[in-house]
């Protein structure tokens, strides 16, 4: 699949049934899926405990993983600027489990 078509969901754990973590920069884990919602890469977030600049480093991390879309609860201005520069689309206001967030996103996209 093409770079940038992957979706990263900010999560409390590495599986599709894990509850999402609403934070972008300091979520414990990114669950990265391909277009068919198959988990391709659960990534532990090394920035979760970082003092400063966690959002920026987390944004670099997901961009380097070839992610095109991030689903999260909220995203700070520094992380948002970094993701934008990397060409990553951010969808905020997501909630529920990772699977529920993906379903809602895909459903929304289908009706768009």
């Amino acid at each position, binding site marked *: 699949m093409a770079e940038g078509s992957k979706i990263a969901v900010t999560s409390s754990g590495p599986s599709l049934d894990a509850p999402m973590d609403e934070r972008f920069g300091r979520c414990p884990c990114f669950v990265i899926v391909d277009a068919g919602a198959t988990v391709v890469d659960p990534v532990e977030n090394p920035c979760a405990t970082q003092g400063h*600049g966690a959002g*920026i480093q987390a944004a670099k991390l997901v961009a380097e993983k070839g992610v095109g879309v991030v689903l999260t609860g909220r995203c700070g201005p520094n992380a948002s600027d970094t993701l934008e*520069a990397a060409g990553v689309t951010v969808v905020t206001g997501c909630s529920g489990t990772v699977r529920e967030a993906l379903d809602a996103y895909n459903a929304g996209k289908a009706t768009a």
Partner: protein
Amino acid sequence: MRIGIASGKGGTGKTTVATNLARVAALEGRTVAYLDCDVEEPNGQIFLRPEVAWRRPVTLPVPRVDAEACDLCGLCGEICEFSAIVPVGTKVLVFPQLCHSCGGCRLVCPQKAITESPREVATLSGGDAKGVQYLQGLLNIGEAMSPPVIRALKAVAPPAELVIVDAPPGTSCPVVEAVGGCDKVVLVTEPTPFGLHDLELAIETIGALGIPCEVVVNRAGSNMEATRELCAGRGVEIAAELPDSRSIAEAYSRGEMAVEADPDFRDRFVALLRRIEGPR
């Protein structure tokens, strides 16, 4: 002599002790400077009421990237510990508020694509407050980096027989910067569990800096035993116990100074100053 007034816990009475010490020294006709180093919220002015005679900005150098010269090698992003400069995609992002102004990115850039430009982060101001030379720093709204502002404030302090440094609360970098160079530190505490907990941290911090310290217990009354025990155990002397007083609290709420509101407190602060300074 330079005396730092610090605390650990916020709201114990640092500014009360610092401003009253400065005022009693000035009333004795001595030259005294008061530095409000709580640059997030300097409030010594409420009590000393200076006539502000000067203001000057504090600027910090932050990187600026020449996109023409940059070849996106990424070395600037690697050396920065604070994610203040981040090569991403086809550009280099700069986050000025995260920058600690170390200049590392400029030094490592092989293309010489990085220059530095000044960014205003705070304002210093000062003036006479009935014989006390008042100085303060105030961070601009949204700024978080106080140590360089405290450093700038200390650098413009006028010569005086007595310099009182009113430190910010806590035990982190801004406090370390504020009390650096002091001959003695007075730790102001209150006889509460929180006051006691943070006093212990503050004693450790000041001890690690190798500066002699003494304790002033503010709003003293009952529950003094734990504080006395802690100080005795750490070999730190209690220089004064300022009693909890309704009339002083009322004066404080009107922005009045304890030494001007109550002769008993004036005597206490005169004695405290003598004790801290030792034989002159």
